[in-house]
Each structure stands twice: as C-alpha cells, then as structure tokens.
C-alpha cells in the first residue's frame, strides 16, 4: 500500500470520527437545550439512528472480518480473500489494501515453493553425483582414501580397507590416526592438508607393511582438495608398484648379469689372441690349446647371444611358430652331438636311451632343439668333472605321450629352490658359484614346452646326487 493511500484512509477515519462526535454532541445538545419537545424527539431519534447506523457498520465489519478468517482457514491463496470483502464506500480502500497484501503474500509463497522445488532438485542431483562418485571410487582397484579438513576419513574403498586392514563401515568418519596404523601414511595426509596449496599434488613412494609380514610398495598420489579457498580435505590414491619394482630390479640384475656373461668369454678370447700375437705360445701344442680355447669361447659367446635374443624374441611374440611332425629322437641326437665337446672337456660321460625315430611330435623344430640344448647345457654346467649325463626318452602309446628326461650326476638343487627353477632370472644361490648362467635357460625351456607346445616340464633333484629335468609332449600320428 502506498503512503499516500495510508494517509488518505487515516485522514478519512479521523474526519469521519470527528463528524460523528459532532453529530452526537449536536444531538445531545439538542436533547438537552431544544425549546420544543418535538426538537428533543428529533434529537433523540437522530441519536438512535446514529447509534443503529454505527452498530450496523460495526456488525458489517465484524461479518467481513469473520469471512476473511473463514476464507483464510479454507484456502491456500490469499487472493480469494480480498475478493470476499463487501464493497462499500469505506471498504474499497481497506479491501484494496488487503488485496495488495494478499497478492504480495501469494507471490512470496509461490516464490518460496519454487525455491523449495529447486532445492529439492539440486539435492537429488547432488545425491546422484555423490552416489556416482562413490560407485567410481569403490570400483577402482587402487586404494583410495578421502579425508576432510579435520583428518577424518570420509570415503574409502575396499582396496584401501584391505591394504590398511580396517573395517570400512566402522572406519567412516573416524580420525585417520585411529583407522590407519601406518605412521608415515598418517603424516603424509596431515602434511598435505596443512600444505594449504590450492589443488596441490604430491607423489610419494612408500612401503606399507601388512600384519601378515612383508609389505607392498605403493606409488601414492596425494591431492589437496579445496572448496574455494578453504581446504576441504585430502584424497590419497595408492597404486601398487611392488611387482613393477620387482620386475625392474630383475631387469637391472639381468642386464648386469648379461654384461658379465658376455664379457667373460670375450675376455678369454682377447687374452689368448694377444698371447698368440706376442708369441707367448712357444710350441705347437700350446698354440693348438690356445686356438681351441678361442674357438670354444667364441661358441659359448654365440650360444649366449642366441639365448638372450631368443628369449627376447620369443617372449615378445616376434617369432613365428612353425609346427610340423618332428622326430624327438633326431632332435635329441643333434643336441647331444653339439654339447659333446663341452662334456668331453669336463670328462663327463654322455649316455643315450632313445626311442625309435618314427615317434613324432607336432613341434617347431628350432624351438624344441633350443629347449633340449638348454637342458643339456645346464646338465654339463652343473655336473662336476667325471660325472654322467643320461638322455632318456620313452613313449607311452596308450597315453599318446613322449617323455624325455635328462639326468645328471651333478650338484643338485636345494628343495627350497626347486619350485622356482623355471622362473626367469632365477638362479639357486647355492649353485651361483658352481657355474655362471643368466637364469634364462630354463625359463625359455618352460615357455617353449608349456606355452608354445602345450606340454609339461618336470624336475626332480637331490643335493649332491644330481637332477633330472624332463618334458612331456603329445605324440602325433
């Protein structure tokens, strides 16, 4: 309602009131002082009329108010109320004012309802987003920890619960130093929160020890989350790099070993050649010895290089496998012939017990030959001078299998190493000094026999007595 309207109504009321009082006063005066009784009667009558008019007006107003009250109670909008007011002279201003108020009230209510609806939608969206985020976090295989500005755990996934050994349900909203029993991890989270960096990030490597003993190494990415300028907490994602580190370490070891292994025969070759050049080999016998050494070491170097290249190529899938029926006995014989000089050098006796050549297996000739050669080479390496190596192959017609065994009287393999002998780079520590090796030979054998030819590798060994390495392949018609 405008101010002028308010002023107007007020003035009207005042004027009206004043007029009424004057009329009453005049009527009263008339009754008291009128000369004739008729005038006194008129005065009394007008007074009575005035009283009745006043009562009627009040009654009408009371009725109108009653109406308003009833309407308000029944309806939801105020607009209807304004329309119920009786229309008469004094009331247009009043009803207009009430109508204005009721319109404003209606608009306010409508706006409030709209706002409430908007908030409801926003809440639904926020909830859906939160559930979505939670679903994402739970499905991540890396461990995820989310903390709030008070270092309390607000979100974590199954992987985190497993890594730090806590109960997901119980840990919710618990202080991080009560949930995690890893002081370094707790420190990292605290430091990140205190760093006050806006959307900062830090990557750290850390080993988390497990109750069961041992531990796993993680690459931890910590991010601080801010809500505007205020820190909202920390998100930590732990990626398990234990295996990667192991493999990387193995690769480094491998490279060092390869370097050493390649250098050794090369060193011999160079030394002997230099001796020959300098005329240090003064007689024919010595010269011949030198030439033989150079030849053997060259061959050794060649085999080593082949081995390394083979492994790399085969494992990376570059080599084309060509399978054809092959006679196992023929391949064995060839390999035995090649390894003979080495065996002779150590006075090792080579014995064979081979099946008839017509027994064949479907195989890639080069690969199978390589596998056999590796086994024979190992046998010679780990058998001391004067020992025996037996190459035995037998056929099981009913099972349609051909089983080959290379049995030596060598140093044997300790029981604790036995499960791992076919692992890449694995070398039994006890035998480290007996012979040099890359730890690759057997891994290649296993790959060739099992992965490429779907066969089976076998090993039996007794320390001090010897070992028996074997493989089983399917016979082909």
């Amino acid at each position: 309602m405008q101010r002028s309207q308010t002023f107007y109504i007020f003035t009207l009321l005042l004027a009206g009131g004043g007029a009424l009082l004057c009329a009453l006063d005049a009527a009263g005066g008339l009754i008291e002082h009128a000369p004739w009784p008729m005038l006194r009667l008129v005065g009394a009558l007008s007074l009575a009329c005035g009283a009745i008019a006043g009562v009627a007006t009040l009654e009408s107003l009371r009725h109108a108010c009653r109406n308003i009250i009833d309407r308000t109670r029944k309806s939801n909008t105020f607009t209807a109320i304004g329309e119920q007011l009786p229309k008469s002279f004094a009331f247009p201003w009043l009803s207009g004012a009430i109508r204005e108020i009721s319109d404003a009230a209606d608009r306010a209510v409508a706006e409030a309802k709209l706002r409430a609806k908007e908030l409801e939608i926003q809440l639904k969206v926020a909830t859906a987003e939160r559930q979505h985020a939670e679903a994402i976090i739970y499905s991540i295989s890396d461990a995820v920890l989310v903390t709030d500005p008070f270092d309390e755990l607000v979100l974590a996934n199954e992987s985190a619960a497993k890594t730090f050994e806590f109960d997901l349900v119980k840990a919710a909203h618990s202080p991080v130093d009560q949930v995690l029993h890893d002081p370094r991890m707790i420190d990292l989270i605290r430091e990140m929160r205190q760093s006050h960096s806006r959307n900062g990030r830090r990557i750290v490597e850390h080993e988390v020890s497990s109750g069961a003993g041992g531990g796993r190494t993680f690459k931890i990415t910590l991010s601080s989350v801010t809500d505007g300028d205020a820190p909202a907490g920390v998100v930590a994602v732990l990626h398990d790099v234990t295996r990667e580190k192991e493999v990387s370490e193995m690769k480094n070891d491998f490279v060092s070993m390869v370097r050493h292994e390649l250098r050794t025969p090369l060193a011999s070759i160079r030394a002997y050649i230099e001796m020959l050049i300098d005329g240090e080999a003064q007689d024919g016998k010595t010269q011949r010895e030198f030439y033989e050494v150079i030849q053997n070491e060259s061959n050794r170097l060649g085999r080593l290089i082949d081995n390394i290249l083979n492994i790399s190529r085969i494992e990376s899938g570059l080599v084309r496998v060509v399978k054809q029926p092959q006679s196992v006995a023929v391949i064995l014989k060839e390999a035995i012939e090649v390894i003979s000089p080495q065996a002779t050098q150590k006075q090792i006796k080579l014995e064979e017990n081979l099946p008839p050549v017509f027994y064949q297996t479907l195989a890639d000739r080069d690969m199978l030959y390589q596998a056999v050669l590796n086994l024979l080479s190992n046998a010679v390496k780990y058998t001391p001078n004067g020992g025996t190596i037996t190459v035995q192959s037998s056929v099981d017609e009913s099972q349609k299998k051909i089983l080959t065994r290379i049995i030596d009287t060598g140093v044997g393999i300790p029981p604790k190493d036995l499960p791992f002998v076919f692992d890449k780079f694995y070398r039994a520590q006890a035998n480290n000094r007996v012979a040099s090796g890359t730890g690759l030979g057997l891994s290649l054998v296993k790959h060739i026999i099992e992965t490429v030819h779907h066969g089976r590798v076998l090993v039996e060994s007794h320390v001090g007595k010897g070992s028996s390495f074997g493989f089983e392949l399917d016979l082909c018609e």
Partner: protein
Amino acid sequence: MNAGEKTILVADDESHILSVVSLKLRNAGFRVVTAHDGQEAFDLALSERPDLLITDFHMPLLSGLELCQRLRQQNNHVPAIMLTARGYNLEPSDTMQNGIVCMISKPFSPRHLLETVQEVLERSAAA
C-alpha cells in the same frame, strides 16, 4: 730387472685366466704358483711366501679381499694386484690397508698385466 728370483702367486677360479696369466709370467721369467680358490691361495701364500699376489675378487671359499685381509692378520704383507669385473670399485680404505696396490679390471690385456707386475715389484724392491 732380474725376474728369476721372484715368485708370484696367481689366484682365480677361472682356469683360462689362470693359464693365460701363469704362461705370460713364466715366459717373462717369473716363478708362478697357482690357486683355484681363496683358501688354496691363502695356504700357498703362507707356505711359498710369494713376492707378489695376483688375485681375482670373486672366488669360492675366500674372496680376494678376504684373502688379503687374512694375510695381513698373519703378518704377511705381500703386495697384491686385484682383478675385478669392470665397474666394481672397492673402498680406498679396503685397498690400502690390505696391501692391495693396484686393481685391474677384466677383461684385461696380459701385456698390461705384465707391465703392472714389473712396476709393482720395482716399487716394492725400492721401498
């Protein structure tokens, strides 16, 4: 230099190294005694009292370093030349204290070895 009176002990588990080095030194006029492992070398060092020790670092039973340490403990101050795989470095404290005067990395040239041997013997003769 008159090499005829000098005895050199050569210790290495690799037979090729052993034969190359002993032949080279014998041809140069030295008396050479060989050992295939650290323990054998230790025993020979005590019994033969060589003027120089040439030893590999990696050996069964006793490493080259342990050999030198033990000899020192036995009051045997024979100068030693250590043969090592390339890239392997001993601490200076390990070498000086134990009489290791020189390190030669493999693969080595027999010529270079002979020159080094002659140098070391001259120096220790002068000392």
